[in-house]
């Protein structure tokens, strides 16, 4: 088994997340550094997009990673590491939403809304070069559009983009069946496409 020094010698790409987590569980702190570097951005943005409050996102972000640290001895490879990590994040998020009761986060809702209103985006159907430039600027708003998605669809979209999870892994991370995960992701894409159809 390579040592920490080996891991630091630019070989981090050769180790899978699962191997790194096992190494961390075996006491190799350097393995955690690599894991953290790989996933910190995705987890952070996943929480940030869902909560839309940086301070709150940071609090939960820290909590998610500390849960992972505390679970290092019990970690076993059952699926992709990212699926496990984002399941922790998902559970932490759901706990938070439930605990907050009537807080605005709850207003996000955590059920699939069948009749979601279409996303609203400033409309300029003109196809002039100026309009295209403007559209490019509007694309900057994709993040806002994502944040405006219904929570379940947003989560599916974020897991797909931030964690690079496929439909099966999204289903596993969020505790729903494959078809539900698939339709959530599809609805999310549909909405974003419609929201940006004049600009893509």
């Amino acid at each position, binding site marked *: 088994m390579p040592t920490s020094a080996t891991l630091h010698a630019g070989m981090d790409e050769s180790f899978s997340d699962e191997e790194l987590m096992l190494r961390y*569980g*075996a006491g190799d*702190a350097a393995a955690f550094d690599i894991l*953290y570097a790989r996933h910190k951005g995705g987890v952070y943005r996943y929480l940030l997009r869902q909560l839309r409050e940086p301070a709150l996102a940071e609090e939960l972000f820290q909590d998610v990673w500390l849960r992972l640290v505390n679970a*290092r001895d019990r970690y*076993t490879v059952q699926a992709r590491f990212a699926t496990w990590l984002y399941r922790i994040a998902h559970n932490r998020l759901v706990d938070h939403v439930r605990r907050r009761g009537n807080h605005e986060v709850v207003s996000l809702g955590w059920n699939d809304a069948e009749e979601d209103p279409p996303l609203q985006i400033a409309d300029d159907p003109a196809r002039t070069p100026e309009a295209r430039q403007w559209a490019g600027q509007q694309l900057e708003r*994709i993040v806002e559009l994502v944040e405006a998605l219904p929570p379940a669809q947003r989560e599916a979209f974020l897991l797909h983009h931030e964690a690079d999870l496929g439909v099966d892994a999204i289903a596993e991370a969020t505790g729903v069946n494959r078809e539900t995960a698939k339709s959530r992701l599809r609805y999310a894409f549909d909405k974003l496409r419609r929201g940006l159809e004049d600009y893509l």
Partner: protein
Amino acid sequence: MSEARNDDPRRDGEISAAYRTRSAETPPAGLDARILAAAHRAAGGRPGGRKHRWSRWIDAPFATAAVVLVSATLIVLMREEGMLGQRAAKEAKRASATQERAVQAPVPAAPPAVIENGAADMSRPAAPAEVRARAEEETGASAPQREPPAAANASSSPKGGTAVPAPPEPQRHDALAPATAPIPGERAQAPGGVSVEGSGPMPPLEKREAALEPFPAEAPAAAATIRQQAAPPAATPGRAAVMPSAPDASLRAAPAGAPPRAAAPRSAEVQAPAADVEEAGTAGKLAREKTAGPAVQTPEERWLAEIRELVRAGKFTDAQLSLARFVRAYPDYRVPADIIDALKPAD
């Protein structure tokens, strides 16, 4: 949703690209530092720190006790084996003395011995079915007969302090032993009869086995128990069960027909069933292969089988690492529950 969906991978790709290029927030550096520090602190105590500290107290006494126990068991086993070896040697000496006496007896006495040993029926042309049944009996009996020499050899180890005499010359005459030896039973009789008749050329190995057969036949049950551990599973009834010893049967049967004094038809009859038995052996082998089937087919299954082997060998870390590589290679493959359970840490 009532709206018609319009799947467009290209536009989905653009959406993804647009999102990825515009979504780049990262946690503050202070937060990174706090989390990394906590992770390093936790790892500082080594994984399963509690277990480790506990095991430090328990490891040395436990290891010592285990070594003592294993050593004691080995000593007892070796002593027992030595005793068995001595007894086997005594029996061997006694049996060879008896055989020497039998050999010194007039030569014409041999054919009656054959007859006495249940081969009397063979003087008349036997029906093929009978011969086959006899061959099966022989082969059924010969399976355990092949093992005793190993036990006898094992008992001749230096620890045993005795050596089973393997006289080169009396070996052929030893084959007479079953006829005169006090051990009753088919096992001794069947080969005995065949061997006596087989005054023609006999392979040296076969001769040696035949010579050693009578001794272990009397070997104590303890030796038999030890042998059983190394021996293949007992044959089940039926022709397939005969299969493993079929070549043996043909080897033994062949010389039976060889002597010119022996009746020619009998030779043919005996050899024909032997061929049957061999045929049955091949068929049985095929049948076994068919029933066993290819246990592992796909690379994934082969890999998982290796992981199971690692688990079985107690190499849990290796198994985990191998599974990690497996998950990386086959991210969509559902890891079997038995492997997950096996690698789950005991709480």
